[in-house]
């Protein structure tokens, strides 16, 4: 209160003239803690770059980025990364198709329709879903979802799902993403000032109209952020795709076929018996670099979108 009533004086001027080393030390310590995350990220990038560069010394970037066959472990070797990129994107796409409608509709229900008591119990329950161990969900997808899908698969959709398929993994990942989308979107929608809502009600709008035409657009930046966060989670998910989607690099968006995601490839190869330093071993780092660039791109996009659509309220 004191500092703001005298605009020219910043809090640091209130310090005693004698240097208090204790304060400086604490300041340094806190600064170092904050710096740790930046340093770690930089270190990860550097550790990815080294072996990746040695990998690209032997395999041309064009072959890597645009090739359509990924078989570094088989002979003859082939290093086109598209099949596993498409594998990741396929699982992410089908997972989002399942999770976004459910997440958004849950958020709308929680913020516009539910009574406060219902909202207070339901929201934490939703967040519990995000806490289920991914290995348990992956095993559940492989042991229950896939056989169930195979049994109820309608003939007009074509072949029934393989024992490993993208759809089971996508549904499981969708289950993990729903809480993220629902929770963050609901937060965004709740923070829309009630003045806007009340104005719309006063004009005679129905609840659905208020939710879709007033609240939803106002909260758009938060909703977009939640979806992008969900996408990041889906792209980085390893255990579920490892256990349910398979290990067959396959350039297809068809959800009933077995595919291999980038994360699963890294997990399988990294824990396998490839000798360090070989070309095959360096593929782990090259794929990791691709994954990192994808996630970085998405995060930057989300920051842009959030800034663009953000509504600032007084």
């Amino acid at each position, binding site marked *: 209160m004191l500092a703001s009533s005298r605009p020219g004086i910043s809090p640091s001027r209130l310090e005693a003239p004698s240097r208090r080393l204790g304060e400086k030390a604490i300041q340094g310590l806190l600064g170092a803690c904050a710096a740790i995350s930046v340093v770690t990220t930089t270190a990860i990038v550097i550790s990815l770059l080294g072996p990746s560069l040695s990998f690209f010394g032997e395999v041309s970037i064009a072959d890597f980025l645009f090739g359509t066959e990924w078989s570094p472990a*088989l002979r*003859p070797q082939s290093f086109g990364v598209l099949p596993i990129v498409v594998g990741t994107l396929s699982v992410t796409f089908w997972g989002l198709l399942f999770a976004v409608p459910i997440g958004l509709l849950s958020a709308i229900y929680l913020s516009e329709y539910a009574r406060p008591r219902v909202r207070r119990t339901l929201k934490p329950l939703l967040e519990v879903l995000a806490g289920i161990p991914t290995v348990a969900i992956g095993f559940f997808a492989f042991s229950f979802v896939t056989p169930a899908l195979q049994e109820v698969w309608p003939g007009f959709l074509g072949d029934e799902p393989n*024992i490993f398929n993208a759809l089971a993994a996508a549904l499981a990942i969708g289950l993990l993403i729903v809480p993220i989308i629902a929770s963050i979107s609901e937060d965004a929608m709740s923070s829309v000032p009630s003045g806007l809502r009340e104005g719309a009600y006063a004009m005679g709008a129905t609840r659905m109209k208020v939710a879709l035409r007033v609240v939803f657009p106002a909260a758009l930046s938060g909703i977009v952020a939640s979806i992008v966060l969900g996408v990041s989670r889906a792209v980085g998910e390893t255990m579920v795709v490892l256990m349910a989607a398979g290990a067959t690099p396959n350039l297809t968006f068809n959800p009933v076929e077995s595919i291999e995601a980038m994360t699963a490839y890294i997990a*399988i190869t990294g824990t396998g018996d490839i000798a360090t330093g070989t070309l095959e071993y360096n593929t782990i780092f090259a794929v990791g670099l691709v994954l990192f660039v994808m996630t970085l791109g998405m995060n930057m996009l989300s920051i842009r979108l959030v800034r663009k659509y953000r509504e600032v309220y007084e």
Partner: protein
Amino acid sequence: MTSSRKLVVLAAVAVLAVGVAACGDSDDETNGGGDLSGSIRIDGSSTVAPLSEPMGELFNEENPGVNVTVGTSGTGGGFEKFCNGETDISDASRAIEPDEEEACQANGIEFEEIVVANDALSVVVNPDNPVSCLTVEQLGEIYGPKATATSWSDIKGLDAEFSEDLEIFSPGADSGTFDYFTDAINGEEGAQRSKNVNVVGENDNATVTGVSGSPGGIGYFGYSFYNENRDKLKALEVDGGDGCVEPAPETTQAGEYAPLGRQLYIYPSAQALEKPEVLGFVNFYLENVNDVTEQAGFIALTEEQLEESQSKVDALATGGGE
């Protein structure tokens, strides 16, 4: 101290003494007398693990002080650890390769290749599949690196009419079984078709489920997995040039089931054999291996193979080591 308190202390000491005496070495069996102690680290093939694990447990019953741990990092992964000195014994479903041998030599690890069981790498299909025999060439048309067959009717010269779509299952490239099969059928280790193959990794049960669930399914793994799932799968006879031979103990021991008859090994290091518990375990292994193989679903060693394995162990134990 009051007399009643003295009584309580005495009683407590007596109970403790009785307890310690009762919990002492009470099972003195025949071999080794149970005074061996230490830990034995084994790692490697997931095909050989169902043999090494029960051996470890049986040995632990007779020698409770010895703790045997069996990992399943795959044949290649096991050798990596073994040549780094991290394990005492390496399980392997294929022979050690030259570059792995070099790594061991570089680290001063001396070892010997001990055959512990025979195995018939079985090619399995759905029980409704009428085909009963495939030649090595036909297997190459299904699994080879240049293979393009998508249906059973694409394979020429089958001994029965069958036109279901091919549903191909394979272990991952880490598997010793994969190495052996690709080497025997496609002529080069690691050479296998990359498209339209369901790679199940180390999860052989997924092959069982997959093949028994699709009419045109085909997969391969060690004999013990086929043996356990005879009700769900059918094993094909393989023609390696001398006629169709089925995977069975008799044909494998006689060397007739070719080229998919193979041996399973353990590789103890000379350094490890200097430890009495490891030497005791390896001798115990060879003494009991033919009893356990039948139970574990493997194929037992012949008399000659057993003698040779035992003499190799003796030679390594006495001659080797620094």
